[in-house]
């Protein structure tokens, strides 16, 4: 690592690391610490912060029925990602990673496309698809039932979350598929050949060669989807802001409403700190139990 350049001068290090440290500290670390401080107060963001509440905001957080609802929705998003989105992505990766499969490259490119579209654009597009007076869903409904009875998927508390979940899968499965393809490409072909010569069935090969070989990419994709599930904002915001009656609310949309629409910065800070702890606990747990065998 030394390479014969001798000891670095302080000035060299300051020039190289200074800008990154300042930017990161000022705009990432300081605000996060401040959020923790705000969380102990009742404060509207203007004037002096004098109304100290101790842990009252946290008590409120644990009792807040909308928080429970929102966190449950985040959890549902996480579970659906694990149970439906990732297996679907894996299935598609297995199909299109084979370059002898005609059209493989085209499918790969096309399936990843939604990932590069902005969440807001995606959300508005699907608002139209779901629109009870115009959309695609209405047209398809009309083939089977009287068109006037077409559902208002985003306006109905019992369907809004499901409708959002479809869009989340639509937008992100391509990312996971792409991660899996990269993992599949790293598995030595000889291993698969050898297993085949030994007479293993396709399922056996998948179970004992392919899946273990994809360990790292599966870990990466699970990590992305779990962290992402607890930070969903844009898509939900663009598809009705978590309404009606909080039926699509997620924890970040709720925090945004509390903090920047009702200017309850203190309680908003509390929600932020709790989001941080949820991510932290998940991270620690994940590193401890799922990344363990790698170390």
């Amino acid at each position: 690592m030394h390479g014969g350049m001798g000891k670095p001068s302080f000035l060299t290090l300051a020039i190289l690391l200074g800008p990154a440290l300042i930017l990161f500290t000022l705009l990432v670390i300081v605000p996060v610490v401040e959020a923790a401080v705000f969380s102990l107060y009742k404060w509207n963001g203007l004037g002096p912060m004098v109304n100290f509440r101790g842990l009252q905001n946290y008590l409120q957080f644990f009792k807040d029925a909308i928080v429970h609802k929102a966190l449950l929705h985040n959890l549902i998003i996480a579970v659906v990602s694990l149970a439906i989105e990732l297996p679907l992505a894996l299935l598609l990766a297995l199909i299109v990673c084979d370059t002898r499969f005609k059209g493989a490259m085209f499918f790969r490119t096309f399936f990843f496309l939604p990932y590069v579209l902005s969440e807001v654009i995606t959300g508005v597009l699907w608002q139209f698809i779901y629109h009870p007076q115009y959309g695609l869903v209405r047209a398809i409904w009309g083939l089977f039932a009287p068109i006037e009875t077409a559902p208002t998927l985003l306006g109905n508390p019992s369907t809004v979350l499901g409708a959002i979940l479809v869009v989340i899968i639509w937008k992100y499965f391509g990312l996971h598929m792409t991660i899996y393809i990269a993992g599949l490409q790293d598995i030595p072909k000889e291993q698969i050949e050898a297993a085949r010569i030994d007479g293993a069935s396709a399922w056996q090969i998948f179970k004992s060669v392919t899946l273990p070989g994809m360990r790292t990419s599966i870990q990466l994709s699970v990590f992305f989807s779990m962290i992402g599930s607890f930070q969903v904002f844009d898509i939900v915001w663009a598809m009705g802001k978590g309404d009606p009656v909080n039926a699509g609310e997620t924890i970040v949309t709720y925090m945004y409403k509390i903090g920047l629409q009702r200017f309850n910065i203190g309680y908003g800070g509390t929600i932020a700190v709790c989001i941080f702890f949820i991510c932290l606990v998940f991270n620690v747990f994940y590193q401890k139990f799922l990344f363990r065998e790698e170390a």
Partner: protein
Amino acid sequence: MKSMKRKKILVDTGKYLICAAMLLMIGVPLYISVMGGFKSVGQLRAEPIGFPDPFEWSQYGNMLVGKTGKFWSQLLNSVIIAAGTVGVVLVVGTFAGYALARIKFRLNKAIYAYFQLGFFFPLAVAILPLYLQLRKMGLIDKYFGVILPQAAFGLVMMLMLLRGFFKAIPNELEEAAAIDGYGRFGFLFNIVLPLSTPILATVSVLTLVNSWNNFFTPLLVFNAEKRYTLPMGVMNFMGQYAADWNLILAFLTLAMVPAVIIYILCQKYIVAGLTGGAIKG
């Protein structure tokens, strides 16, 4: 042998059916958006899926050359912010990544660990104090009010990619450079950077896409409509033309085009960056 061949045909058919289903799932909404922009509201209502008949060019036309919406100015805002963010991340990230990858000093590990804290701090957690901070710094409604936070929150991941790549550059090159009389900066600019174009491209493209699609930060920082980026513009446009879905779809389609072009041109770098392939070079 015959039954194996039949089995293969069956399996292949299954694969194509699955791919076709997904193709429709993704393609139909996009197709509807593009075509919807050519329809009248009445047509849209009667025929959301069919081909426009007649083609109405006025929706797209009025947006591109007329007075409907603010497509061009919002496009320009998005470009300025994306370019600024890419610039900041490249300079700041390259310097820090180089120091952390190639210079031995006491706090190296500690500083790297400090940056990695960023993984635990999603933008959402910091958003309220960040807003107050930016207000204090006078950055509300300023381009830099969006550029700097985007760069700060994107930095961690990009720093990791850059550091990983710089680390893989052989030590012999550094020794040879030292013999030739290069200092640390000479080595960085004359040897490391020219070797690093793949990773620089990856970092630029990923930062570009993230900035392009970001909605949260501009939503926080911009009150003035003249600063709106495309994603904000889409939301705003929707509020303004609530029932004119043909206009909204036309605007949506136009807003999608730049991202699709970037993707088609830079697919290789995006995929490499997101799958860790970039570090392997």
